């Protein structure tokens, strides 16, 4: 008899298109309820994956439940993994190795959330705790999540490379485009102040400025000149066909650098700006090159993270093997103790208390010495794939009842 099997049934961005994934995505409460229906189970549901981790059976029920959510059969896209393979998958997920962007950090919080939303049994508890610990370890021991993996995040990281702490740094956002807004949000999340939003449409400028707590200004030379004298970072993402800012319009900066981010295509900012003293200019190609480079770095670090995940699977495998062996050892010891106590009971009334105590001690030592070596060998076997064979042999040879386990 073996310990409960770990099973994974799920789908992810590797095999399922977004149209399908969005039909099976669940929020935290829904995922917890879904898992409880299949208990003992944990449901991990994000925009990139919906996976059910099960202790024991229910594999087909889980697959059917997911198909019901999707509203169509999932035969071609659903993956099913068992035991070590399922554990390795979870460890890679928690470490960010299975993510669309290797090393992204959000997934670890999502794994933790899925685990904490239910009351898992000992198998799921163990594998999820290991996964969360591994996720933290990968982030602390490798540089997989250190550098930005998107253009807006890279823009903010580059600004920080010039100014250090961005708290209080003032930003001029030119245009109300989506990517520019994302870059501005990234800067704001690092403490920068979106001081001005310049746009051809005053309403759009004001609307966006209000959201960031800044000031909407018209997109003309005098307003830009005024704003440029007051900011540290300029983010531009208009749909204008030509340059909206020429090098000649940039005021001289004697003591403070000015960092320009041009995310527009065609470009908004005159490339000559980068030649000005104290001015740094990054356009979309530069930012994408930086992101490509940091992603290459993440992939290099991913190799180290994979090795850590493999180590963790080995630990999990040993623990699982011990689940097969430890109860057999406990049964054997209980069986021996039962025989010893029974035989000693036959001497009741025929020996003195002192003699009884001595016999108790001597027989205990005999039992312990006899069982010491088998116990050690069994524990050693637990670390190998033979553990279960040894455990079965032990039960068979000594007639240990399954119920004692």
């Amino acid at each position: 008899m073996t310990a409960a099997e770990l099973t994974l049934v799920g789908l992810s961005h590797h095999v399922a298109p977004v149209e399908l994934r969005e039909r099976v995505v669940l929020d935290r409460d829904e995922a917890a309820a879904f898992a409880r229906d299949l208990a003992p189970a944990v449901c991990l549901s994000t925009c990139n994956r919906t996976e059910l981790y099960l202790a024991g059976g229910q594999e087909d029920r889980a697959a059917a439940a997911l198909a019901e959510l999707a509203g169509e059969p999932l035969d071609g896209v659903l993956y099913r993994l068992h035991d070590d393979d399922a554990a390795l998958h979870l460890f890679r997920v928690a470490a960010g190795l299975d993510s669309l962007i290797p090393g992204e950090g959000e997934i670890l919080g999502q794994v933790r959330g899925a685990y904490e939303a239910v009351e898992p049994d000992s198998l799921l508890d163990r594998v999820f705790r290991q996964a969360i610990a591994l996720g933290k370890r990968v982030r602390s021991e490798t540089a997989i999540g250190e550098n930005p993996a998107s253009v807006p995040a890279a823009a903010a990281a580059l600004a920080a490379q010039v100014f250090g702490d961005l708290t209080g740094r003032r930003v001029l956002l030119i245009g109300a485009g989506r990517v520019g807004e994302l870059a501005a949000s990234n800067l704001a999340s690092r403490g920068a102040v979106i001081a001005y939003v310049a746009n051809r449409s005053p309403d759009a400028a004001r609307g966006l400025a209000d959201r960031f707590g800044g000031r909407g200004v018209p997109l003309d030379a005098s307003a830009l000149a005024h704003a440029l004298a007051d900011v540290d970072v300029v983010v531009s993402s208009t749909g204008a066909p030509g340059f909206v800012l020429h090098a000649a319009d940039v005021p001289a900066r004697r003591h403070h650098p000015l960092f320009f981010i041009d995310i527009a295509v065609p470009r908004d900012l005159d490339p000559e700006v980068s030649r000005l003293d104290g001015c740094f200019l990054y356009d979309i190609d530069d930012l994408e090159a930086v992101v490509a480079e940091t992603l290459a770095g993440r992939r290099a670090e991913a190799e180290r993270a994979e090795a850590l995940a493999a180590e963790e699977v080995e630990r999990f495998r040993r623990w699982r093997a011990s689940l097969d062996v430890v109860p057999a050892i406990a049964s054997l010891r209980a069986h021996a103790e039962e025989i010893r106590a029974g035989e000693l009971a036959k001497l009741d009334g025929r020996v003195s208390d002192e003699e009884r105590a001595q016999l108790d001690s001597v027989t205990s030592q005999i039992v312990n010495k006899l069982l010491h070596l088998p116990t050690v060998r069994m524990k050693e076997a637990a670390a190998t794939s033979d553990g279960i064979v040894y455990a079965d042999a032990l039960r068979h040879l000594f007639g240990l009842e399954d119920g004692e386990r």
Partner: protein
Amino acid sequence: MAEALFWPVLIGYGEAAFAYASPRTSRLATWGVRVGWLAQTALLIVQAERTDGFPWATFAGSLNLFVWLVVSTYLIWGCRPRFRLLGLAVMPPVALLFLVARIGGGTTSDAASRYPNLFLVLHVGLVLAAFAGFTLAAALAGLYLWEESRLKRRAPDILRLRLPPLQSLERLTQRAIVVSLPLLTLGLAAGIVRLRQQGASTDPLEWLTLLTWLVYGGFLVTRPAGRRGAYLALAGFVLVVVSRLALAGGHFT
């Protein structure tokens, strides 16, 4: 005792010089710096106790003290995880200079000078402390120019091979000079007072040090920003190097 302390210093600084090459071993490098610095501090204390007089007045001896002062300023201002490349710029020459000090006999405890201790402590100690600060400022200025050039040419690996932020480098360069210049001023003043007392004439090294003072004084007055500030800090450092080499000519003997 001084002999026994030499090796931990060299091993600590040497280990740091290599370990700063990789981000994975930079924490070990920092420990190498700390252990080396503690051992060198003990070495200097042993030298001071055992020598009858000021033990660092020779070229090699002053180099030993100079190395300790450079590492001290580095520990105060630059020894941070994000400043790994500063460690890589500072520690290899530090380890090398310490070895040169040893070869020149500057780590033993039998060198002494005919000059009074108080004067030597004030003059040599303060001037060397200032030079150590200027050395760190030069390393920071060098890193600034490199980082600025990478940002200007938009090097794709700018975030992978990450230096400290540009403005942090600029600020620290200025701070190192602001602290070091008064030390140089006091050290120079002590030397000039001594010259007056002896009625001796000014030697070329003193003129050179005065020129160094003028360059850094100019830096402090004008506070040039960006590249100009970095170039001026490096120009001052060239004079510091020449002054250090000129000390080999036997300024105190």
